């Protein structure tokens, strides 16, 4: 039985044919985890809270930045510098005080999957990078949770419902069926690198909320086994049918144990076997490693602690024969270019033992 107040709040959807008190009760009982309270997460959260989804979890590690405000509509100028989950929780509670909201200001990793996924029924991916997207997909397959996926690129967005239960009881396709492995690092640019029209994640995040409401209430036809792509410039929608991909199974972790041991940053090329500061000290003692500084000649400080070759990254391709048969460590200022150098060298000699100094020269101990 709905109270008078509840009836008034949801009256416009309660009177919909095929919705009614039964659907509203399902929403009130539902538990939804929204990962990422950014461009996609903000509108998704607002509509889920407004619609009366009873229990929401929000995970985000960031604080509000001024560059968020053109699309992350939960936040205002006064919120700059405050944790997103804190501001989101306050504003959403004001929107609908009847909703229970729990927040976690953490980076969402394997541990969080293991702790939080069992507590929720549906997961919404509002993250902004491939490492998180593959992690969340794999976790939803393992913990058997439907995943409402959304992603944007400049003027276009994608939406799909992965891993939900089909009418015949089997699970619908997941993200690995679509793309078994992530693209190479730097191939597909993020919003920070390539830009995004502010309203676009608003459209896509709202579509994600729509799919969550449909999942919970059982109305309509879900975007299962389908990928919807929206183009804001043409207002075109393109839907493609997906099917399971034999390659997907090869890459999905088969157990929680193997999932916990995966390194999604490495999988997505954000990290290649690095040498930390301790290994760096070891490095000085290892005579079998050829050290190569891939910075430009003018960059400071120069490396004096050990002998090294200097080959600027942009010239590396034409000088790889100098490194024939050697075990190589690439070094640059921050670690980024030396990671690229590793990839260039791996392309030349796939079997080479090759490292980069993570954190680069910046992370080396200061000389007295």
């Amino acid at each position, binding site marked *: 039985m709905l109270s008078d107040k509840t009836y008034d709040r949801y009256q416009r959807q309660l009177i919909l044919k095929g919705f009614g008190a039964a659907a509203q009760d399902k929403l009130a009982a539902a538990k939804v985890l929204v990962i990422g309270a950014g*461009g996609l997460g903000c509108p998704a959260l607002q509509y889920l809270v407004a619609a009366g989804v009873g229990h929401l979890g929000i995970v985000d590690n960031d604080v509000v930045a001024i560059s968020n405000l053109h699309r992350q509509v939960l936040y205002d100028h006064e919120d700059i510098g405050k944790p997103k989950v804190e501001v989101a929780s306050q504003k959403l509670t004001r929107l609908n005080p009847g909703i229970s909201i729990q927040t976690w200001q953490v980076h969402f990793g394997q541990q969080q999957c293991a702790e939080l996924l069992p507590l929720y029924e549906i997961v919404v991916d509002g993250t902004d*990078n491939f490492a998180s997207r593959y992690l969340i997909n794999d976790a939803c397959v393992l913990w058997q949770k439907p995943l409402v996926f959304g992603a944007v690129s400049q003027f276009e*967005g994608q939406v799909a419902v992965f891993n939900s239960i089909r009418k015949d009881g089997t699970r619908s396709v997941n993200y690995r069926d679509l793309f078994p492995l992530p693209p190479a690092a730097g191939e597909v640019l993020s919003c920070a690198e390539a830009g995004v029209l502010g309203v676009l994640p608003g459209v896509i995040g709202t579509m994600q909320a729509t799919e969550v409401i449909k999942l919970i209430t059982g109305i309509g036809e879900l975007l299962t086994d389908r990928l919807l792509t929206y183009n804001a410039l043409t207002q075109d929608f393109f839907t493609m049918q997906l099917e399971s991909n034999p390659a997907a199974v090869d890459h999905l972790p088969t157990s929680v144990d193997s999932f916990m041991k995966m390194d999604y940053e490495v999988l997505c090329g954000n990290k290649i076997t690095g040498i930390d500061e301790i290994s760096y000290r070891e490095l000085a003692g290892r005579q079998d490693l050829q050290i190569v500084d891939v910075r430009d000649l003018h960059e400071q400080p120069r490396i004096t602690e050990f002998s090294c070759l200097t080959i600027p990254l942009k010239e590396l391709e034409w000088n790889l024969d100098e490194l024939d048969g050697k075990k190589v460590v690439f070094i640059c200022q921050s670690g980024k270019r030396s990671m690229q150098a590793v990839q260039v060298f791996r392309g030349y000699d796939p079997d080479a033992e090759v490292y980069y100094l993570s954190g680069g020269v910046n992370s080396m101990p200061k000389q007295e």
Partner: protein
Amino acid sequence: MATEVMFFGQLTEITGSSRLAVADVRDTDALKEKLFQDYPSLSAAKFRIAVNNKIINDNTLISEDSKIAFMPPFSGG
């Protein structure tokens, strides 16, 4: 006659257009080969192909009436 191919996301930066007409290709492998010749960086890009709005896992026959789409992954949020 040519088959029309649609490109999505950052693939359009490689092809310079969201739609291209490709002549004389009888299957998706031939289509890819032709496009890789014209746009070499496409061969390094990640994408899936849909024929008539259905994703394909294997080489698929196409005609000039086929609706072809090249879909890359998006990561932004």
